[in-house]
């Protein structure tokens, strides 16, 4: 298995911000700035695994109250009720709105869980410097980045509906605490994905840095 040479081996380092490749003087100075854009130069993102792991852990913790607490309070003709995400899914499914139920389920349950699993997998394998299925892991990372754009769907729905439906006694919808935690989950998982340096996937045992 012949791998292309590493930046470390060539004595160069790439800028995170502008992508400029410059000489690797980090060993001497310990700190260097990009000559073009001025951003700090790192061979890898600093503390990538730790940051991604911390954000992921926080996101997973917040995911529990996000599901336990009601995200939305709907009142129709005086009969109000708090709805959690999963109960909403079940009710929509029971009511025959399979499409909406699937969308909510995907956005609120499937996507966050996928992110947790994928990021967790990536973090674990990168910490062990595993050489297993590198390409597939890289593809998973791209997937996580892609779905991250859509993770705020629930929060958006609640925000828009709560702003639109204000008919006092007739019908009223208010956000509840759960949606805040859900938003935190989304933000933290995105931060986790951002903090993760995908180049770590390729840092196998066979290379020295």
């Amino acid at each position: 298995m012949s791998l292309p040479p590493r930046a470390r081996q060539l004595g160069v380092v790439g800028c995170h911000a502008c992508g400029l490749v410059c000489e690797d003087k980090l060993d001497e100075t310990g700190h260097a700035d990009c000559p073009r854009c001025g951003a700090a130069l790192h061979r890898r993102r600093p503390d990538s695994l730790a940051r991604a792991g911390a954000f992921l852990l926080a996101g997973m913790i917040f995911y529990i109250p996000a599901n336990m607490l009601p995200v939305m309070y709907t009142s129709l003709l005086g009969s109000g009720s708090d709805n959690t995400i999963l109960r909403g899914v079940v009710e929509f499914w029971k009511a025959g709105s399979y499409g909406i139920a699937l969308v909510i389920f995907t956005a609120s349950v499937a996507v966050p869980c996928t992110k947790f699993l994928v990021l967790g997998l990536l973090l674990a394998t990168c910490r062990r410097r595993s050489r297993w299925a590198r390409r597939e892991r890289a593809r998973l990372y791209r997937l996580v980045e892609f779905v991250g754009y859509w993770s705020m769907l629930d929060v958006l729905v609640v925000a828009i509906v709560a702003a639109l439906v204000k008919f006092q006694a007739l019908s009223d919808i208010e956000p509840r605490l759960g949606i805040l935690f859900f938003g935190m989950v989304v933000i933290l998982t995105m931060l986790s994905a951002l903090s993760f340096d995908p180049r770590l996937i390729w840092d196998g045992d066979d290379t020295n840095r």
Partner: protein
Amino acid sequence: MTQTGDTPDMVPEPREPPVTHRRGRFSLVWLVPGIAVLIGVSMLVHAWLSSGPEITVTFHTATGLEAGKTPVKYKDVTVGAVSAIALSADGAQVIVTLSLVKSALSLTREDTRFWVVRPRIGIGGVSGIDTLFSGAYIAVDTGTAQQTSTAFTGLETPPTVIGGMPGRSFTLHTDDLGSLDIGSPVYYRRIQVGRVAAYRLDVDGKSVGVEVFIDAPYDRFVTADTRFWNASGVDVSIGADGFKLKTQSVATIVAGGIAFATPESSQSEAASGSTSFVLAKDQATAMAPPDGPSQFVQLRFDQSLRGLTVGAPVEFSGLNIGQVISRDLDYDQNQHHFSSLVGIVVYPQRLGRVLEKLRMPAGDAEQRSAEFLRGMVEHGLRAEARSGNLLTGQLFISLEFVSDAPKVTFDVSARPLTLPTVNGSFDRLQEQVANIVAKVERLPLDAIGRHVDMALVDLDKTFLQVNSRVLPETARTLLQAGQTFGAAKDLLADDAPLQQKLGQTLQDVQRTARSLRVLTDLLGTHPESLLLGRPDDPAPAVPGSHKPVPAQEPLR
């Protein structure tokens, strides 16, 4: 982790190892999950601290209840929610789990009541209209017990009395509930002052305890002397003063109700909350003076008592002093004879002032009654089943003094006391009529009829003969008889010659008799004249008489 400058042999001259900034440094990023954990833990602690008791309430049905939605309200304040609804193990009940807030801990007393508020439309009114739109909720009324509980039995109907309402509860005892129900009104002078709060069968199952709640300030009108009666329905009475129809209100006709009143003469204080009263059947019974102690007496009748019902009155001199409470059949093995045993209760108090005038023997109540009855029986007191209504044949028991009653011995020691009986007058009449009828039935009416028929035929023939032969003869005979009577009449007439001659003859006889008497007188006074002839001295003359007569005897 990162090792820099660890190859000293590759470097021409040693130099200071570069400072590694990251070694041993605690990454601030770990604060993020730390804060997340803190938030989570604080929420958990908050939920733990604020979580109230979880209790289960059993209902017959979960109509209108939804897990996670239906609120629990106390005084219209939400104090919890239904967290789960499940069937009981046998499937007969619905077990509703309620999660209460922490402040609702005081609501979990043992006697706290739970019920479902849903729209109800009844005779007493409409309730729970607000739940038409908002959905049913579970209402709570806290109790007063010290013990708390986690399992409750829900009420199927809302209680009429909520804790903390001003007023008092009283317990009424009655034989049966009638048309009363929870929520039935209680009236005082036709004003609704309360309602039936609860009812339950007494422990022995022989009576019903009805709990009524009287609102303040009317509750002070309930005194120890207050009488309660069942004002349900319509009271129709026809008396000497006409037709009367009485009812409390239209609602009571349908839904039943209770009324109460206190006798005018009562001076009692307001009754305490736990006082028990008797619920009378009607106003007349309720307001009647108390009956006092009762005395059970047994009667044995040999006659049939068809028409005697339990509850029939017992009268003494036309005064109702008790009632029939039992009827049984008895069998005498020796004589193969059935007799009726009638149990009556007598309320001596109903005799009123008479009781004070009667001399009561000493002893305990039973003994006294026995002695008293013995004296009465000696004077002829007998029980009798009389017909109160000839049309329906209803009987009542009458206690009367029967003057010609056969002597009986009254067993003072027998329990229950047994009063001798006589057969009722109507019954005797019936017997006599029956005897006559039996005799009539025994008559050979057919034979008699035949005989009479034959006799009539003969008679007819006889009459024919009479008409054809006897009558003409008779007519002739009568004619002759008429003639004979005419002749006799002529003979007997005043101016008939026979009469005249008879008169003369009688006058002659009279004269002869007179002469004869003169002669005998003469001979009596002067017997010698028979030989010597008539004396010279004449007898004193009688005026108007031309014949000498004895002086002392006037002639007629």
